[in-house]
């Protein structure tokens, strides 16, 4: 498809080149009463140069050849034949031709060089990006691994340890492996999203069930917060991918827990506006720096000076999974304090639960 598009755009370039030259020649024809044919050569040369700025080399060469021939045929005396009267004019035609060609080739070359430079810059940026990523990722993965290796080594020399030490080391291992599992899960989700083979499987979802199932997975960490859920009675069913939406809400709550103080509010709200599902998750933290809001959903992006922990993948997975539902997710700071993530998904709605069954 790509090459087809490219071909058609090349064809278009040829067409535009010919039309432009014909127009310029027509203009020259109208001017021929007022100016000499040598000035018209300059008008044509400028036209070819302008084409060279935008187009590929072959359409420009066509424009150069065509304009030279037309100039010769229509303007150089004797007009309306290709023969050229004087040696001076022959030399002029030759020079016209050479200058037009040089323009075409030079502009083409300059653009090639620019492209090369841009590519090199992009590559350098990518390398820089992946280095940052590798640093943060290897930190996030190595910390729990180090804990696990160190603690097990200690436990293998168990004679020296008190029972209290042993159980402390064991619980360190447990915490570290849960953390490691979380990171791996995020990485897997990300690669699933980027693999292209990722498929969304929609089925009827009870949003209340979705939200509360997700919340239950956060016990006991969430009990340190005031988590409030607002979902209207008789809320309809929506066609969603349960597993993906579970992870979306999980990541938003996990983000709130990581970055806001214990004892504060976390509010989850769901609404149905026409055929769209609206879910908001808000916290009472200090909000996001205004100039970084647009970037928080970027892969591996981490807010400046934020607490260590986390790979910068959570929110980009949120965006990826919501967009897989053709939905959108936005973030804004609340007027008093805290931030609110809003998810909006257009989807089929079923009010079957409002009917009296049986």
């Amino acid at each position, binding site marked *: 498809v790509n090459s087809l598009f490219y071909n058609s755009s090349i064809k278009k370039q040829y067409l535009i080149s010919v039309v432009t030259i014909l127009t310029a020649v027509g203009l020259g024809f109208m001017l021929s009463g007022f100016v000499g044919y040598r000035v018209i050569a300059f008008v044509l040369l400028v036209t070819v140069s302008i084409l060279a700025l935008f187009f590929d080399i072959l359409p420009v060469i066509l424009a150069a050849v065509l304009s030279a021939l037309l100039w010769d045929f229509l303007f150089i005396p004797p007009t309306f034949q290709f023969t050229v009267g004087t040696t001076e004019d022959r030399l002029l035609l030759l020079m016209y031709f050479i200058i037009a060609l040089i323009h075409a080739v030079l502009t083409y070359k300059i653009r090639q060089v620019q492209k090369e430079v841009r590519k090199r810059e992009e590559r350098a940026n990518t390398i820089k990006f992946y280095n940052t990523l590798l640093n943060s990722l290897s930190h996030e993965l190595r910390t729990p691994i180090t804990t696990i290796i160190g603690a097990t080594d200690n436990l293998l020399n168990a004679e020296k340890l008190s029972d209290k030490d042993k159980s402390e080391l064991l619980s360190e291992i447990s915490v570290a492996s849960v953390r490691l599992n979380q990171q791996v*899960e995020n990485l*897997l989700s990300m690669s699933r999203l980027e693999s292209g083979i990722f498929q969304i*499987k929609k089925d009827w*979802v009870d949003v209340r069930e979705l939200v*509360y199932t997700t919340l239950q997975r956060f016990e006991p960490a969430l009990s340190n917060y005031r988590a409030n859920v607002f979902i209207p009675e008789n809320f309809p069913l929506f066609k969603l991918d349960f*597993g993906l939406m579970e992870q979306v809400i999980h990541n938003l709550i996990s983000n709130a827990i990581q970055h806001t103080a214990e004892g504060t509010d976390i509010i989850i709200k769901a609404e149905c506006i026409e055929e769209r599902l609206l879910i908001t998750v808000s916290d009472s933290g200090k909000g996001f720096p205004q100039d970084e809001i647009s970037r928080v959903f970027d892969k591996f992006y981490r807010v400046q000076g934020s607490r260590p922990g986390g790979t910068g993948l959570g929110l980009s997975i949120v965006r990826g999974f919501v967009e897989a539902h053709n939905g959108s997710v936005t973030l804004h700071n609340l007027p008093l304090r805290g931030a609110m993530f809003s998810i909006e998904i257009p989807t089929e709605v*079923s009010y*079957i*639960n409002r009917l009296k069954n*049986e």
Partner: protein
Amino acid sequence: MSSASILIIDDEVQIRKLLTITLQSYDFKVQEAVTAKEGLTAAANHPPDLVLLDLGLPDENGHDVLRHLREWYTSPIIILSVQSSEEDIVKALDNGATDYLVKPFRTGELMARIRSALRKTIFDENNPLGEFKDLTIDFVARVVKKDNVNIKLTATEYSLLALMMKNEGKVLTHQYLLNQVWGPSYRDESQYLRVFVAQLRKKIETNPNRPVHIVTESGVGYRFVGSTI
């Protein structure tokens, strides 16, 4: 139940070792197999009381192994699977797997799955009663009580709940529940299931938003939990 024999079919030596040590500490007899071929032979030579089958074996697709086993083996088979493969899990359950565990799993989860898989159906004509913490059911009188108080259930609600209670501790897929309670033509009408599960939770759970009896297995189905898992 103890000294029941369990066959582990998994190519990862670490997983086999972990499972063997854990199961032996709960007094199970353990056989290990590394490949599908080895597993099928072991199961034929010394039929175990339960099989733990990894879906990702090197020599044969786990679903095929499951199908081969099910041609003659009727005891429980629990599938070991990796994350984000609900479709695989549902397919395995449709093909006769008794239950599933997602790696990484907790030992408590493992033991709960094995226990409920090994439990023969407790309910027969001689024992028409079931007791699950605060809930009791009388399968003959078709009566469900919570804290000794009758719960009013519609006929469909009762069929759904009774089916789940009969399979206490086991995961039941959405399709299975729809097929059994509503009939084959409702297999894809999952909205009915959602609505009735929500209604049932309102009636039988102390806090319907934190259900302890009807547990959601995301993307797969529901599990009725009678006692603590």
